[in-house]
């Protein structure tokens, strides 16, 4: 009986904590979903994107985009594994929108990376993280 008294509240806390760290759906406006990537397939852009990724993104998303960066554990919302097929299935415009605008723990980068071309470079690098 004593064991249940300890285990049940513990399970409750874990369950609530787990739910809290689940990510809510992140709707992307239609105009972004349809947005064409002007730098698609540009090798130089991927190299630029890698530099930006290493500087701005690895602390949370990790080097390979699996969401295992050193700061990830402190976040209220766990970063997605960007190498997974369901994430990679999103259109380029979706990555562009989310990087530019941000939400909750994910900061907006439109001031820190003011040129759209750089955000597209980042999107192109994120594509290389696909498994």
């Amino acid at each position, binding site marked *: 009986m004593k064991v249940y008294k300890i285990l049940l509240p513990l399970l409750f806390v874990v369950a609530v904590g787990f739910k809290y760290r689940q990510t809510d759906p992140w709707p992307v406006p239609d105009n972004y979903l349809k947005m064409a990537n*002007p*730098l*698609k*397939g*540009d090798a*130089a*852009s991927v190299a*630029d994107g*890698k*530099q930006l990724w*290493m*500087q*701005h*993104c*690895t*602390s949370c998303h990790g080097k390979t985009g699996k969401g295992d960066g050193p700061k990830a554990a402190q976040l209220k919302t766990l970063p997605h594994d960007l190498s997974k097929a369901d994430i990679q299935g999103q259109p380029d415009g979706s990555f562009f929108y989310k990087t530019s605008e941000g939400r909750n723990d994910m900061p907006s980068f439109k*001031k*820190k990376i*003011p*040129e759209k*071309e750089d955000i597209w470079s980042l999107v192109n690098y994120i594509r290389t993280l696909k498994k």
Partner: protein
Amino acid sequence: MKQSTTTYIAHLFSVSLLLFLAATSVAQDSTEAPVVRKVRPVKNTFGGVYFMDNQTTMVPIKGSMQMEIQHRFGVVTNGSKDLYGIFAPANIRLGMSYVPIKNLFIDAGIVKEKMQVDLDAKYAIMQETPGKYPVSISAFGNVVIDTRNKSNFLYAVNRFSYFSELMVARKVTETFSAQVCGSLAWMNNVEGYVDTEGKIQPKMKNYQFDVSLLGRYRISPKSSVIAGYEQPLTQHPTNNPHPNICFGFETITSSHTFQVFAGNYYSIIPQNNSFYNQNDYTKGQFLIGFNITRLWNF
């Protein structure tokens, strides 16, 4: 016979047309139009606005605000007695800077040594751009006020000193960047001595010219090894300053720059270093220093 010949020609024409269309389509796929990118200034020549004891040509983007913490420990020559200078009296600067308009960086700080207040400005005159500008050029200038008690000065203007610098930088390769700088420092007040005839003579001139060379080699997208050399050019009647050799490590994140290094300069105010550096690298008089900056974008 005639009909079969006509049918044969029709088939041949159809097949040829199909082959032509297929070939054209393949050709179109394999010769995808190359992406035309706008020519833009070169990025990441340096990791931040500071380069150990110097400035870089870099000016952050408009609306950036930066907090600066700079520290210089004592010289390492006392060995374990003061843990290689780490427990010796240190020099500290705390500063805040802002980029109000494109390419203009303004900065203000307070320094422990002589309780100085510095007001600085840097303007990026030219940014290295492929096919347009081969180098980046920036100009830096400051006014420094010594805020110690007035008993230290004969006139209020003696509190003021000035520094101006022209910097030329180039990102030589993706991993290596270099910068050459020429600077002029001016002190309103220099020490004097009374000569044998009873006349007051200055120990130093009021001005000091310097040249410096800096290099940064990136060992990873976020980390670099950095090195620099500064040579005083002006000859003074006494107390000629020594050159500075500095080398260290830099790492950058989205909002921070960290530099840890060893060098001969103890002052953080550049004109004080130019005029008064008596740490001699040939005698191993190096000290450890660090620069930390935190950037916000508004």
